[in-house]
């Protein structure tokens, strides 16, 4: 039975974690993620969920506690943002290296300095090589749906990696939407309890976190690469099962109007919503534009992107984070390397936007589409990297 609930993005993630019957939550509050932890602690206090809620003194400790709990075979959840994620950085690699299927909600927020609490992707992009699966949700509904699916993907024997479910700070984390939720029972049947293949157990002693020098470290890292590759199949399978339950379709990416488009925007998160609305308006005016929204950023859906862009002439890549000193933003670098690797002749330019939560307006997006169409027509990229919405 499906119900409609009014939930913010943060509450939607907390609600999904509650329905997933998480065994352990160790988390530390930080704006704009705080509501996730706050809402979850209320579920625990009210006895709606039987999770062990560990109040820790920092995000570093939060992830450490999560890693320990996950190794015992527990289903584990945490959440953070920005500086908190930065403080976790060291432990993020340990969680993936020790193959702990932790699920983490991240309300993306700018990194200091200057101090800022608003949404951009600097935090997660700074951790993009940490070996976690990284999913970006466009709205509260997607945040809810992906959080539930994330447990099933993470805990699959062929993956066993942590997953972060990202929402744009404040834009999604604090906006209330009417979202469709299923009964607790249905979510539980979909997920079942975690069945860990190998855990720390006094009766069957194992060593975790042993020294791996020049002779074994490389092999262990190679296994992680393989697990991320394997996760594509698992994501697809879980998406299909989730569709059977909820009738909502997910994939590694979503497209809008790309099939017959000449120019498109590719982006992550809530910006895709604005982009789709603008694309609809432009398409009604006869302009051939489309939108590609990546749900799954890590592992990078190379094949799907190549398939999606095959008819395009120009592509604008929107990055909500700055890769200082790099030739392009993180997403654009990935897109370009994929296109180049496949020998694809497609004109690409990069738009860096929205740092520190600065709004990207429909007018901004429209001008990006117009520039992309112009690029498609002339075949000339006027400005490889542009900064959208910054005052000169």
């Amino acid at each position: 039975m499906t119900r409609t609930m009014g939930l913010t993005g943060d509450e939607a993630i907390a609600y999904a974690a509650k329905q997933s019957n998480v065994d352990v939550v160790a988390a530390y509050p930080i704006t704009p993620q705080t509501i996730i932890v706050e809402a979850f602690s209320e579920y625990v206090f009210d006895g709606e969920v039987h999770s062990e809620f560990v109040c820790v003194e920092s995000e570093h400790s939060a992830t450490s506690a999560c890693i320990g709990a996950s190794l015992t075979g527990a289903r584990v959840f945490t959440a953070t943002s920005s500086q908190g994620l930065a403080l976790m950085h060291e432990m993020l690699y340990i969680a993936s290296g020790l193959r702990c299927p932790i699920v983490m909600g991240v309300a993306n927020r700018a990194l200091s300095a200057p101090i800022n609490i608003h949404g951009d992707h600097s935090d997660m992009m700074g951790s993009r090589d940490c070996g976690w699966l990284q999913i970006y949700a466009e709205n509260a509904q997607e945040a809810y749906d992906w959080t539930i699916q994330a447990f099933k993907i993470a805990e699959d024997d062929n993956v066993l990696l942590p997953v972060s479910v990202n929402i744009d700070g404040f834009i999604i984390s604090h906006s209330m939407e009417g979202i469709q939720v299923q009964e607790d029972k249905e979510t539980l049947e979909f997920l079942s309890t975690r069945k860990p293949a190998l855990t720390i157990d006094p009766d069957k002693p194992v060593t975790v976190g042993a020294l791996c020098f020049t002779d074994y470290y490389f092999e262990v890292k190679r296994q992680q690469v393989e697990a991320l590759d394997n996760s594509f199949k698992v994501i697809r399978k879980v998406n299909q099962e989730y569709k059977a339950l909820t009738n909502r379709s997910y994939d590694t990416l979503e497209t809008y109007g790309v099939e017959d488009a000449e120019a498109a925007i590719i982006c992550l998160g809530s910006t895709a919503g604005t982009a789709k609305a603008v694309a609809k308006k432009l398409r009604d005016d006869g302009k051939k534009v489309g939108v590609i929204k990546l749900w799954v950023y890590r592992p990078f859906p190379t094949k799907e992107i190549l398939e999606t862009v095959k008819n395009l002439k120009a592509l604008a890549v929107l990055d909500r984070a700055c890769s200082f000193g790099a030739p392009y933003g993180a997403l654009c670098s990935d897109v370009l390397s994929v296109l180049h690797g496949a020998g694809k002749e497609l004109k690409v330019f990069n738009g860096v936007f929205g740092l520190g939560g600065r709004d990207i307006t429909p007018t901004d997006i429209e001008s990006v589409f117009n520039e992309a169409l112009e690029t498609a027509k002339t075949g000339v990229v006027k400005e490889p990297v542009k900064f959208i919405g910054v005052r000169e």
Partner: protein
Amino acid sequence: MWQSQKEHMKRCAGLSDIRKPGWRSIPIGGMLLEPGSALKYKTGDWRAFRPIVDETKCVNCLLCWIYCPDSSIVRKEKFVAINYDYCKGCGICAAECPTKAIRMEEEKR
């Protein structure tokens, strides 16, 4: 995956110097499935210089035995010997030996 871990344990059972297994056949996450495996870890292969005891010069004073930071001096009836499984070749024994009975030779590998 778990099948290959079993295979790995089987290989571990007789493992000494055979070629090390590839990434497909070791447990994930660097996990060690058998307890006490540190006993198999011989740190002596870190050694760049090897101490050699001249048994004719050794007076069995045991100064080397006292100084050795890795407890790698083995006491014998009339002179000392070296436990090359764990000696890392620091050379303290050779430096402290009052009769110059221990010399350091470069490891040939």
